């Protein structure tokens, strides 16, 4: 009772009590190498030798209350728009690369051109991301493009020349650590494909080549895919003609 009265007295004088909180930052990382998985091109075999990875989340205005998760229709729309238009469409949906919010750790680069995934580590560690922007359990995504790059000075990217792309966001797993969910205040989250034990549903754009090794194939431009389909149809037609 004595303490309570004393508190009331103090609160009356100072108005409020200083909360005991940290500065509220998190670290989010993504790495690709042969040990933990990587993107390959749409053929499902060859390494991606150019382009870059972007990783982050969707938010209409970057605040905690406006985290956005595109639904399957949104991804279908993005897919049909083609790789070259994908980046602009992603930004219009509220895509935020976490490099716009934090400080990029030194050591390596999320560009495939640094040696081609997975001959060397590619990826990045981004520190001091405000927790208020990416509160715990915010869904995170990894997006790969086979052309273009991120400019960490201007915090912008040029992925318009990409002809293939892929998106992965592990989610719905029974083990929380397998999901691409942002960490609690002060924590770290390293997203990699293998340890997430990806399923096909985790690959939002692209295809899962091998879950046990964490290999994900990008998808080509719709026009490229359409040409391939036309070509395949032509072959079938030729075989039929020959049979006749």
């Amino acid at each position: 009772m004595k303490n309570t009265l004393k508190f009331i007295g103090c609160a009356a004088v100072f108005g409020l009590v200083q909360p005991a909180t940290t500065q509220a930052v998190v670290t989010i990382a993504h790495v690709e190498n042969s040990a933990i998985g990587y993107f390959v091109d749409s053929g499902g075999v060859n390494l991606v030798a150019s382009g870059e990875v972007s990783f982050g989340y969707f938010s209409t205005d970057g605040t905690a209350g406006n985290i956005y998760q595109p639904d399957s229709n949104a991804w279908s729309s993005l897919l049909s728009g083609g790789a070259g238009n994908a980046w602009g469409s992603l930004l219009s949906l509220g895509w935020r690369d976490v490099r716009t919010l934090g400080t990029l750790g030194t050591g390596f680069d999320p560009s495939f051109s640094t040696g081609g995934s997975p001959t060397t580590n590619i990826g990045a560690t981004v520190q001091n991301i405000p927790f208020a922007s990416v509160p715990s359990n915010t869904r995170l995504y990894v997006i790969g493009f086979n052309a273009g790059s991120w400019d960490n000075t201007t915090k912008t990217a040029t992925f318009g020349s990409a002809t293939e792309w892929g998106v992965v966001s592990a989610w719905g797993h029974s083990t929380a650590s397998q999901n691409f969910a942002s960490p609690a205040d002060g924590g770290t989250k390293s997203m990699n494909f293998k340890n997430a034990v990806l399923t096909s549903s985790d690959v939002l754009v692209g295809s899962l080549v091998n879950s046990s090794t964490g290999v994900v194939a990008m998808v080509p431009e719709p026009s490229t895919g359409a040409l391939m389909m036309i070509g395949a149809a032509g072959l079938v037609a030729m075989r039929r003609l020959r049979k006749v």
Partner: protein
Amino acid sequence: MTIHYSKVSLAAILFAVSMSANLPAQTTVSTPIVGFRKTTLPSGSVCVVPGFVKSPVYQASSVISGQNFAASGLTSGAYDQSSFGDRPNYPTHYVEIVSGTYEGYTFDIQSNSASQVTVSGVPAQLNGQTVSIAIRPHYKLDDLSAGSNGLLDYSDAVNITNPDGTTTTRYYASGSWIAEDFSSPAGHTVIYPGSGVVFSSGGATITTTGTVKTTKTAVPLYAAAVNYVGRMNPSGSSLVSGLNMAGVLVPYTDGFNVPSFDGQMTTTSTYFSDGAETLDAGYSPLAPGATDAIPADSGIQVSVSSDTVWIMKSALNP
């Protein structure tokens, strides 16, 4: 005696004191190294990891039977749990295994008789084994603030992260601590060995005292929480390469941040593991002789994907 340990410390003054006169007759080890360390807390928040434990009140060889450690010559009930306003059945003492495979593991004491102590959480594989143990009083928030200067009532506070990820806040008041309700006494709140608290103040000085551990310390790391832990090293900063953390972390997934000790708690560096070596933020192994360090009195923020235990070596036996 004055030991070599004091030669490497500018801030800590360490003494070796024989405590044998205070221990039961069964005691086999009787020269703990005690000392104190004065720490200036900047305005804002910092992670503080006390570098000391309490001196043992009992040391002997003990046979484990289920959740009981055999002992002799104890005062019945002396180490029993206590009930406090905010927490019933709260531990006051713990048993620590001080040698062998399970060196460093600790178990909260529920009760004791003259011939045994009853604890919880003993692994089944320890049943029937004979181990060397020490019984120590818990290090409490009151121990953290004893000898402090500049702490403000109802303003300065600590956050303690619980195993389930929730946070417990304790406010400083009238020389002790109170719970979130601003009335329940909470100075008894335990700071487990190797664990840290987030200390928020307008700037203060704390003086920690106790015994320097010469044995390993097992520090639980919980998947549901960001774990504030650190090296119990009252002599100064600790090298990241000496944390022995690489084998604890799931490769390329688990990691830890080193927060600044300037009140801002910004992340100064991040580390991962490849299973064998500690990796820097670029996922490259720390070079031999790397000087990456954790500030004195401070800790790290560890994220793990499943519950595990970090075996921390003694600062005296790195």
